[in-house]
């Protein structure tokens, strides 16, 4: 028995050493997380760039109503002014700031914000009257002059103002023909048609655009149009906007998670509900998807490994090395050894990745936090402990072993009956198609871990390792044990079938014809 195991170990060791002793292996293994990191950093920079350097899109409004377009324009302006004043209110003035801004900041500290907005809107709203110079007049007048002449400074201070993204073309009386030409020339993103009677009916209201998939402009404009129309309706019904909003307020529940209830010093009574729940952060929500990520990595490793195993089998068959090996070993020993060797190679890759991820987090987290504050939030959120939860790590290893053995034996057997890689890939296609199902259903399974679909899929052996990895935290112990026993039995069954096919298939010069040929190999002797 020990001799047999030693032979298996020798095969595994050789395959592992050969795979891991090449520069390409380490380069590939290192490049994967490095590329992922580069992509993540690139994504963050791209997001920052997108946030800071937005290309402004223009739009036009054809107003066939009695001035709704103008009211919407003013509503947008009012929101921008309020937005800007809020920014100024929260920001300490700097010595280099314009004088008027310092004065506005001071006003925001003393005056009520709606009143301040109203006072500024008096001079800013359309149609605009002629304004005095910047040095004369009231604060509202001077601010209005400054506002009209410093749009880039406004965007710099308050990047979320609407004209940082969209600007209305104010040329009067453009015809639809002219607008269509502007659309074709990409001078505007689209134009809105506000029909007569728009307050009562959306009929004939249109947003004309060349890019029907890009709806952000329409959604944004709709929001302001809705507000203007609501205000009109509230006024007609003699209801104040505040009352109306109060009436329309939606009920909402803050998503929280239960924490272990703390007890007072004598340990007799749990503390109140407030202490036993905790608000869920974004990172914690991300942490909830850790099993799905494990499932993805598991799938990726199992298939990379099983495919490499199949390729190696075909190569060793074609060079007849396998014949020499089979004169020294049983086919099962050879298969087991090769499977173990590949598994060790993959675990080396995973170990390297964990090492690479852990080092900067442990040693250089301060540096990372200084560059990306989100990393700090992530580290403090406890998501890391969700991701490296021992339950997931241990089950990852268990289901990796079972999944890799299941698919590794299957693909080795298929590889043994093929003369070249192309043939093997063709024969493996049905297995690959079946195996991709849990990957496609990864997110639905993650969202309903105790549902009927994941439960049924967890009992189907080709899906079991991947589905179980995703739902393991939610399954009952009885279900878990049953699955382990069932999957182990199925894997041993596949090993037995693979042995039958491999032992005869590896010596065949021509591959057997499809399923019938494989069945014949299972039925026959070597």
């Amino acid at each position, binding site marked *: 028995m020990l001799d047999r195991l030693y032979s298996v170990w020798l095969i595994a060791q050789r395959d592992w050493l050969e795979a891991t002793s090449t520069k390409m292996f380490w380069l590939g293994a290192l490049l994967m997380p490095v590329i992922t990191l580069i992509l993540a950093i690139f994504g963050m920079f791209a997001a920052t760039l997108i946030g800071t350097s937005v290309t402004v899109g223009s739009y036009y409004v054809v107003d066939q109503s009695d001035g709704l377009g103008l009211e919407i324009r003013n509503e947008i302006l009012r929101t921008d002014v309020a937005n800007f004043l809020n920014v100024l209110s929260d920001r300490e003035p700097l010595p280099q700031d314009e004088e008027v801004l310092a004065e506005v900041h001071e006003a925001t500290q003393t005056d009520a914000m709606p009143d301040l907005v109203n006072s500024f809107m008096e001079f800013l709203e359309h149609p605009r009257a002629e304004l005095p110079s910047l040095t004369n007049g009231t604060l509202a007048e001077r601010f209005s002059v400054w506002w009209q002449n410093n749009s880039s400074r406004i965007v710099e201070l308050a990047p979320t103002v609407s004209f940082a993204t969209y600007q209305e073309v104010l040329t009067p009386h453009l015809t639809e023909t002219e607008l269509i030409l502007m659309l074709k020339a990409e001078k505007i993103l689209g134009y809105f048609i506000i029909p007569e009677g728009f307050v009562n009916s959306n009929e004939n209201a249109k947003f004309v655009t060349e890019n029907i998939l890009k709806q952000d402009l329409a959604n944004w404009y709709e929001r302001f149009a809705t507000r203007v129309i609501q205000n009109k309706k509230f006024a007609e019904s003699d209801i104040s906007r505040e009352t109306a909003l109060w009436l329309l307020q939606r009920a909402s529940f803050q998503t929280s998670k239960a924490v272990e209830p703390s007890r007072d010093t004598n340990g007799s009574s749990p503390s109140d509900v407030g202490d036993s729940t905790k608000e869920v952060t974004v990172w914690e929500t991300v942490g909830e998807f850790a099993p799905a990520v494990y499932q993805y990595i598991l799938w990726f490793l199992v298939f990379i490994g099983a495919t490499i195993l199949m390729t190696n089998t075909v190569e060793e068959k074609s060079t007849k090395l396998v014949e020499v090996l089979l004169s020294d070993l049983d086919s099962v020993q050879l298969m087991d050894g090769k499977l173990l060797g590949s598994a060790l190679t993959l675990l080396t890759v995973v170990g390297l990745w964990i090492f690479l991820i852990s080092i900067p987090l442990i040693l250089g987290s301060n540096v990372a936090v200084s560059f990306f504050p989100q990393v700090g939030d992530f580290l403090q959120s406890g998501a890391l402990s969700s991701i490296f939860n021992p339950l997931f790590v241990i089950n990852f290893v268990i289901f990796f072993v079972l999944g890799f053995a299941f698919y590794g034996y299957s693909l080795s057997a298929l590889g043994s009956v093929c003369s070249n890689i192309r043939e093997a890939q063709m024969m493996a296609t049905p297995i690959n198609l079946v195996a991709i199902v849990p990957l496609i259903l990864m997110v639905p399974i993650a969202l309903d871990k105790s549902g009927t679909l994941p439960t049924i899929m967890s009992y189907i052996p080709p899906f079991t390792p991947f589905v179980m990895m995703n739902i393991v935290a939610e399954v009952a112990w009885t279900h878990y044990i049953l699955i382990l026993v069932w999957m182990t039995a199925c894997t041993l069954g596949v090993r037995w079938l693979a042995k039958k096919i491999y032992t005869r298939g590896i010596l065949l010069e*021509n591959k057997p014809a499809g399923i019938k040929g494989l069945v014949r190999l299972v039925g026959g002797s070597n």
Partner: protein
Amino acid sequence: MTDSNSTHSVAFEQTRKKFGSLVALDRLSLQIPRGSVYGFIGPNGAGKTTAMRILVGISKPTSGTITVLDADDVKDVRHLIGYLPEEKGLYKRMRVIDYIVYFGRLNGMRKRDAVTKAKALLSEFQLTDWEKEKCQALSKGMGQKVQLMATLIHDPILMVLDEPFSGLDPVNVEVVRSIILNKVKENSTVILSTHIMEQAESLCDAVVLINKGKAVLEGPIDEIRKGDVVSVDHEGDVSVFDGLQGVVSVKQIGREATLQVDPECDLQTLLKSIFERTRVTQFNANSASLHEIFIREVGGSEATSETTADA
């Protein structure tokens, strides 16, 4: 098992192997003497490789039995067998010495012993300078020598070599020949298959000629070659030899007829009988070469035909 006084290393007994409807080996029965060089000869696809695969335990017979080194199950004596398959592959990225040591360890050797033995073999095969090179750097001939070293490292007492001379230059052929002969001197048994009849004739103590899965001819070389071949250059056609006593078979190409005669046949009487029937211009009597026996038994067309029975 191997300590018994059995005179043979291998015994096939009614051994049959079928692949679907194809009979690759048809009730082969033969005994291979211990301490001999035994040749498997036959055309491509005759069943030689199948017989060798059964012998080393890679394949199992459909029916019949095989006893190897007195064991009924080859697995029990696998570590005493060294097998060199017909098509020879190497782990290209492995170093030469590691490759040889690897096969030693697979056959139960300790690493230290395997390294020592591998170095000795590399020296014997004059490949010491290549010890640390990767196998992919070797020429075809060198690669074959390395494979042979991997076959020999654990000192097998039964060596099964499928076409050991193919691809080797004359110098390396001699090296391999001397290795085989040395092993036999150590009372090991060497079973080899070859297409080169001269090699078989000069190296083997006994051969089996396999054709279409059947043993057509089997025995010591001297016995197989026993019997005369007479070539007659004459002016008549092949019918002049009809009914001649002692003539087993006749083939005639042009004026030259080749007669296979019974070993007991008196050549003087035969010559006299032929003179009575035709005008003879030349008469030669020789022992048949293995090549001639091969051609005679297998037939020219079949000898070169390709089949897939060796699968």
